[in-house]
């Protein structure tokens, strides 16, 4: 799998090209200073931020392009698993309802969803918490539910934005062990950002650095992916 991004998003100019190998269970850490646009980059790949100019291509398929707007896909058609910082669970839905949200959006019937939710929550070791609301869960448990919610849709790629941020030591270890497990089971590349070197050491099969320079109003971010 390849990913080409040459785009201006907000005040960032991105220029990067990454080759990802799904077969090798790749887990790539995107490392960069604060303000290098890591979160912006992920949100744009997921289709949540409009690009001012340029294009994003995944596997020779354009998913976003200002030159050919008709080829741009809305987020719901990109099949990208995206976990923003903190997991962003739906606060009004139980753990089980959160997990099957994507299935419900695709019109899967309720009974099938109940079964899928139980299977998925069990895989992530939180089956007994299915009726809890997000605020009744610990930070680590929330990330488990958020991962289950993303992976139930079998996305082609997984983007994790700071998966261990704002967790206490136990929560961090918990999430890292889950993520190590996800890396072994998930059939696609994982991209994650982190500014914690311990996460990178524990999870990354490869590290790419975002180099930044400032040009007027823009921060120019480029990734030098020398595989």
């Amino acid at each position: 799998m390849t990913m080409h991004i040459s785009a201006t998003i907000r005040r960032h100019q991105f220029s990067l090209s990454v080759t990802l190998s799904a077969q090798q269970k790749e887990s790539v850490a995107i490392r960069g200073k604060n303000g290098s646009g890591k979160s912006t980059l992920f949100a744009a790949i997921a289709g949540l931020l409009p690009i001012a100019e340029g294009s994003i291509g995944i596997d020779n398929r354009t998913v976003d392009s200002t030159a050919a707007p008709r080829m741009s896909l809305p987020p719901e058609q990109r099949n990208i698993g995206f976990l923003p910082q903190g997991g962003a669970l739906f606060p009004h839905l139980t753990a089980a309802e959160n997990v099957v949200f994507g299935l419900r959006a695709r019109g899967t019937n309720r009974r099938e969803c109940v079964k899928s939710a139980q299977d998925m929550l069990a895989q992530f070791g939180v089956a007994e918490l299915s009726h809890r609301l997000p605020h009744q869960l610990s930070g680590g448990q929330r990330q488990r539910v958020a991962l289950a919610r993303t992976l139930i849709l079998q996305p082609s790629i997984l983007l994790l934005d700071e998966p261990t941020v704002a967790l206490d030591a136990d929560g961090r270890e918990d999430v890292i062990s889950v993520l190590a497990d996800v890396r072994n089971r998930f059939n696609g590349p994982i991209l994650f950002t982190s500014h914690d070197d311990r996460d990178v050491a524990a999870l990354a099969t490869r590290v790419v650095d975002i180099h930044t320079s400032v040009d007027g109003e823009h921060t120019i971010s480029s990734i030098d992916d020398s595989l």
Partner: protein
Amino acid sequence: MKHSSPKSLLAIAVVGIVLLTLPIVAILIRMPWTSLGEIITDGANRTALVLSLRTSLIATLLSVVVGIPIAYVIAHHTFPGARVFRALCVLPMVLPPVVGGVALIYVLGKNGIIGQYLWDWFGIRLAFTESAAVLAQFFVAAPFFIVVMESAFTSIDPSVVGVSRTLGASPWFSLLRVQLPMVLPSMLAGIVLTWARALGEFGATITFAGNTEGRTQTLPLAVYSALESGSDAALLLSFLLIAVSFTVLVALRSQWTTGVTQRGSQ
């Protein structure tokens, strides 16, 4: 820890509380409790009450139907003139209601910029009808709903909405299954507030809809008429309005303290 306030501050507070509560107390003291049944079963009063309930509920429904899209647009979109648009939408909140009534006459009155065509082409006359009472209440009350809903939409964590989209939700699905349920407590509070404002509407109604008994005479207008004719009904009808407002206020307090911002920030 004991919290002690400066003594002079307490004194001012006590005077203020007396000033604020005495008028209400006066109504309760002077209420003709013995003729309560008589006044409440009086045909004209009952008509005013029913008319008030009907028009204020329709005005509230209208406010919700147009208020959600307006609040959503104001909360999510930055377009040229967005701030002016927002100000215009909530302007009636700070406008003297009578000015609202005058404005409505110039739009929908028989010679109004739209009203003349409604009359010429369809033979529809809005001014001084029950529909006019609804429109007057809507004009004055809808901004309350818009303001509450705008701040509710703004308080939603954008990444939660974003994730709903990456999980396959269309913009509509996300609105109906994520955003509206998240702002439900605020929405209920907004509905109650809007309804209370519509129920108490006076200035715009009397200007645009008039004060015709049985047609456009809502509860506040009935209070005014009763007071002018020196009838005890003014007290009772006022008491009715006070009771409704007080209930609304008590209900709102608990709504606001368990609002979405608290649940969402967990």
